[in-house]
């Protein structure tokens, strides 16, 4: 059971403004004090670079930095911390795999399979690599409720499918894809699977070995950590095969003007001075959510979803887009554009996302240009849902 009153006290933004109804957690989450403290204490007490010096500050920073890698490994149950690559975020992680795959795994005529409800970050990198290599981007359709059509999905898989890239949870609709089943089916035809975990990492326990995914990507800032850092998990054998993504310091073995040999993963993929403080902040964020427990968080958010569904469904003029299975609700209000909804809700201290959610193909599928989206985090309560309902009624009163 999540004690939201105690949790809310840990978020300075909610302490400073208890009236704030923050419902844009699918975009980014607020930060608890422990994350802010981790960054602040590193900068103000122990700041130094990593992997570059023999002095104490540097050694201390390197040790703390590497500790977070091992922490992430345990967090998602990877076999080895060598399978954890620090990236700028989910988008960066997907681009890293897409660009490397184009060099080593893909040949003209091969296929990459995605689903219709992917975020642009899990469409465009694959589209670009398809263009460069001469592969085909194949899109698995979803049903009218936004859920993946597994019969059609299975039909799209074939011996030409080299990679399957699928969002764990659709950011625009809140629908969870059956990734375990997808991975089994894909492996049966010899395809590798990348799971975009941006929307699941802070909302359910992730076990990459149990899933048997080949890659799993997520961002720190959606799990109560800082922006600018994220994680690419990749099975060791695949990371070993992928070429470097960027070139520079920290990722080399030896360098001469004639030839450079590269460090093994994960360092091969971490060129340049990394976001050290942000990695430490992410470590604090993982401690924070593990302190609450991901199963408790999942229970809490699923209760909120059920409550919101019951409260909002009867609201006249409100249409839910898709049938969400997680704490993300996308909706339209008859005759009122989502941007007007967003602005008017904001005037009542309610923060929601209004727009296409970086998922234009999903919007086209449901024949809307945009939706309003409310998404839950660990600190949200049924009072926030009640405020949203009152806000929606207010929007309707202003606009009609």
């Amino acid at each position, binding site marked *: 059971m999540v004690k939201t009153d105690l949790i809310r006290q840990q978020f300075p933004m909610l302490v400073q403004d208890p009236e704030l109804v923050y419902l844009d957690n699918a975009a980014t989450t607020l930060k608890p004090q422990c994350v802010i403290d981790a960054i602040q204490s590193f900068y103000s007490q122990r700041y130094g670079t990593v992997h570059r010096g023999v002095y104490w500050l540097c050694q201390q920073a390197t040790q703390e930095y590497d500790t977070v890698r091992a922490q992430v490994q345990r967090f998602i149950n990877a076999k080895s911390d060598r399978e954890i690559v620090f990236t700028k975020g989910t988008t960066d992680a997907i681009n890293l795999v897409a660009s490397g795959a184009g060099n080593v795994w893909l040949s003209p005529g091969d296929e990459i399979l995605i689903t219709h409800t992917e975020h642009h970050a899990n469409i465009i990198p694959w589209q670009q690599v398809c263009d460069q290599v001469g592969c085909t981007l194949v899109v698995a359709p979803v049903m009218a409720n936004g859920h993946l059509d597994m019969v059609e999905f299975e039909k799209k898989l074939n011996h030409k499918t080299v990679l399957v890239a699928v969002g764990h949870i659709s950011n625009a609709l809140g629908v969870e894809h059956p990734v375990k089943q997808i991975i089994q089916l894909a492996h049966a035809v010899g395809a590798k699977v990348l799971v975009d975990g941006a929307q699941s990492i802070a909302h359910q326990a992730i076990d990459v070995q149990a899933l048997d995914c080949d890659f799993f990507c997520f961002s720190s800032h959606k799990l109560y950590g800082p922006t600018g850092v994220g994680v690419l998990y990749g099975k060791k054998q695949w990371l070993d095969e992928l070429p470097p993504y960027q070139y520079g310091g920290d990722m080399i073995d030896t360098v001469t003007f004639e030839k450079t040999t590269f460090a093994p993963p994960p360092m091969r993929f971490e060129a340049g001075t990394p976001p050290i403080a942000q990695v430490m902040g992410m470590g604090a964020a993982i401690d924070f959510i593990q302190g609450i427990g991901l199963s408790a968080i999942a229970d809490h958010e699923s209760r909120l979803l059920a409550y919101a569904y019951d409260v909002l469904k009867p609201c006249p003029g409100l249409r839910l887009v898709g049938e969400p299975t997680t704490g993300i609700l996308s909706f339209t209000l008859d*005759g*009122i*554009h*989502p*941007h*007007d909804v967003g*602005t*008017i809700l904001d*005037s009542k201290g309610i923060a929601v996302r*209004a*727009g*296409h959610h970086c998922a234009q193909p999903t*919007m086209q599928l449901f024949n809307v*240009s*945009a939706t309003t989206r409310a998404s839950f985090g660990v600190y949200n309560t049924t009072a926030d849902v009640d405020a949203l309902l009152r806000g929606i009624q207010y929007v309707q009163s*202003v*606009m009609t």
Partner: protein
Amino acid sequence: MSRNLSQLYQSTILEHNKNPKNFGVLETATHVAHGKNPLCGDNYTLYIQLDAEHTIVDARFDGDGCAISKSSASLMMERIVGLNVQAVLDLCASFLNLVTTDQEADREALGKLKIFEGVKAYPVRVKCATLIWHAAQTALLRSGETVSTE
């Protein structure tokens, strides 16, 4: 309604959002431009028909967007029919000046369009108000092109 919000959603704006003027396709248009705001999805086509003397004899707009962008387009329709090209371009400049700068705009010339001044308090919504005006400049100067407010 808070003061800022009531400045934004004035009754004229709400009325034009519900019943936009000259809404639809103009088959006889001589000048056309497409305006879109990729971040929010506002998406309009502006149709202008000029006669031999460069006077606007008819104008329509078609597409989809928020109350601010739609009412801005609708109020433009009310204003520009009967004006010559230069007068419309001047009006575009005055309108953009009104909502995007702190300079004193030509308020007399803007007339009813002054109501959009309230959008200044909402920086992200300025693009909604200006979209159709950028489209008008494009239609009259580079007909056939798409203009984006990003």
